[in-house]
């Protein structure tokens, strides 16, 4: 399975990528929403995109909207991974087309649990 990790923090990309790699994902990274669109446009369509909210150039909510506008990317599962913890923000993200929402800070187990809920745990590690 493939994942795209979108976060302006290299440290956070590394953390999320490590967890996903350990679960069996092949991981690509992008530093903002615009870079993520370029990765997607290159044809490397992921099964999952983990998207930070607050990023320069293009924020995560805008990215979610743009991905949802493109029918080619309809089957990409979008999960916000962000410090935005207010209920109103969660509602905005889900209304825009995100499938799941993980609030920072998180543990590897909480990310794994979200993937389990989404049916996106690679079969080798699914419980």
């Amino acid at each position, binding site marked *: 399975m493939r994942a795209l990790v979108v976060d302006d923090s290299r440290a956070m990309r590394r953390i999320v990528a490590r967890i996903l790699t350990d679960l069996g994902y092949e991981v690509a990274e992008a530093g903002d929403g615009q870079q993520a669109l370029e990765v997607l446009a290159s044809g490397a369509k992921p099964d999952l995109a983990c998207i930070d909210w*607050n990023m320069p150039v293009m924020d995560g909510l805008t990215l979610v909207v743009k991905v949802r506008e493109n029918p080619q990317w309809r089957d990409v599962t979008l999960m916000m991974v962000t410090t*935005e913890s207010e209920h109103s923000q969660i509602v905005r993200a889900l209304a825009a087309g995100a499938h799941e929402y993980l609030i920072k800070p998180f543990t590897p187990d909480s990310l794994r649990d979200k993937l389990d809920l989404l049916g996106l745990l690679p079969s080798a590690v699914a419980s």
Partner: protein
Amino acid sequence: MSLLPDTSPIDDELVRAVVDQVWESLLGAEVLPWYGEGPVAPAVLQAEVTLTGDWNGLVRIGCAQGAAEGIAAAMLMAGADEVLAAEDVHDAVGEVVNVVGGNVKGALLGDTALGLPRILTGPRTGDEVGPATAAAEPVSRCVLDWHGVPVTVEVFTRENEKECRS
């Protein structure tokens, strides 16, 4: 007297609870209070993130370079012989203050936006604050022990500045 609800529930207890969670989840570390003697030495590295909207202020983490490197190494689970680049250290500490700031924001009522983290380097004293803290007043200050070195987590408000403008 304002008829608006109190949108500033930020105090040391709240900030400490946020820091506890961030340290445990992000750094795999327990938060220990600083019991060192004498004044805390000026921080060489400061990471700040602003909050703007119904509540205005910022969250700042300050520490020595060595502590910043230790925090980054813990966050990245770097190997003992792995030397992190300065930009990776800054990025990691910036993300820590971003997560602390986001969770502080989550405790506020109203509509407040979180800015992007920025890093200031070079010796500073507690009174010598960057532009982001101009006219700001401290509402919380925690000093933590990171392997024998102090790390400060501070929250400032600019609510008075806002009132003066309005």
